[in-house]
């Protein structure tokens, strides 16, 4: 596998991220900033029986951050709190250089070697976690 950060798969995740924008009204919402780079992420959720029924994400950040939001747009609907925690765990695993169980996260494997970019990937997932945890 190439260690090239900006592969087709990652660019696609970023550019074709479903569920961009805001969700109004929503049941839960979280906004997070990365103070070092100024990236900002907002996640809005609609919940039903403890599961994510719908969501939207708004990212002002780099491609890695956008691509991470792309994964959320594809994967997070249907998850409950535990499911979100598991997804975040998978993100940590891929950033530690391991093979993720979630196929879309494969595109982030080259990021493992770039510690300064880990937070770019984590930010949207942290926002997602905050949003489900608030509720």
């Amino acid at each position, binding site marked *: 596998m190439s260690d090239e950060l900006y592969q087709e798969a990652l660019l696609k995740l970023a550019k074709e991220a479903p569920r961009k924008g805001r969700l109004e009204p929503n049941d839960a919402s979280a906004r997070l900033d990365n103070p070092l780079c100024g990236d900002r992420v907002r996640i809005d959720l609609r919940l039903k029986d403890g599961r994510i029924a719908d969501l939207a994400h708004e990212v002002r950040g780099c*491609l*890695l951050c956008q691509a991470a939001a792309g994964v959320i747009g594809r994967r997070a609907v249907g998850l409950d709190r535990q499911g979100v925690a598991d997804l975040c765990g998978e993100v940590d695993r891929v950033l530690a250089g391991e093979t993720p169980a979630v196929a879309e996260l494969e595109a982030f494997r080259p990021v493992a070697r770039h510690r300064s*970019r880990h937070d770019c990937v984590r930010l949207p997932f942290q926002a997602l976690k905050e949003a489900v945890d608030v509720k």
Partner: protein
Amino acid sequence: MTLREQFPLLVSDPGLHYLDSGASSQVPAAVLDAVRTFETTQRANVHRGVHRLAEAATGAYEGARDDIARFFSASREEIVFTSGTTAAINLVAHSFGAGLAPGDEIVISEIEHHSNIVPWQMLRDRRGLVLKALPVTDEGRIDLDALDRVMTKRTRLVAIAHCSNVTGAVVDLARVVAAAKAVGAAVLVDGAQRVPHGPLDIPALGVDFYAFSGHKMYAPHGIGVLWGRRDRLEAMPPFLGGGDMIRRVTLETTEYAPPPARFEAGTPNISGAIGLGAACRWMAGLDWTAIALEELRLTGRLLDGLAKVPDVRVLGPLGLQQRIGVVSFMLGDAHPHDVAQILDRHGVACRGGHHCAQPLMDRFDLMGTTRATIAPYTEAADVDALLVGLDEARRVLA
């Protein structure tokens, strides 16, 4: 030996195009050697010992103060060692700030580094002051025409960057000083980005305080200077309490030492100060007319090159007047982190982000910029490598 050859890191990594000197410069062998000599032949604590190592350490430390004073045409009593620009500005915010009254006004600008914003916000909140900011022009300069409007009889201090760490713009300090004098306000200058670009007669600027960091001017991290006009320093209470800043301590009360000792509590960064002194001696030996010309030429080359790249927009002066070789730009909508990351693949070290100047980013509604800094050791090949890297960045990110 060429200038570049004096930098061990640049020599050992010839594929590196280091254009991030605005964040931290590289360091010449002369400075590294001065530090090592201290650690291996003179190391001891300063001021309080009479044995030969303590004498040698004190001599080296105070000798560094002399070297720095000489380089900046200042007197040694005006050189206060701090851990950097940030610490120097915070010192003034506390010690000078202790004399301010509710309703007094402080003027900064929209272009400032967080280090020259947050300490004043904190002081404002502690003492009920009013904090005002000079706006920034579309060209990325502090709008000095606004001085008339912003300065009042309540203005006690103007705190302003000599050179912007984002746009490279150099401010006309004479205008600021005149406006401040007219209302009796003091002037603090954040010189962090100015000092790496050559000698400076600080007292001649007519300002009251001048702050800078060693790590941007070829010296170690963790050392910096607050230059203060003697009468200002003498009128100020201390900031930090501890050893070395006292005249006499009892459990009840303390008499303080005169400046600069009053503001240097605790064991100082001795090796850092010695490194900064060596950096000043090293700089004093260079031909700054030639270097300034070369920096200008390379800045021009960079600006010309950027002008030819589609989608690139420069944030800051497009000409070479009143600017240093700090050049910020945007590549279309691409995030500066992604741009810097791709440049890195070409060995080009640039900084991408808000550069600790979020209010300026807000002013231009930007997430950040990619920034390249021209230093005395920069060569045309470095600039060209950046331009080549930008081509790839465009292909990938556009």
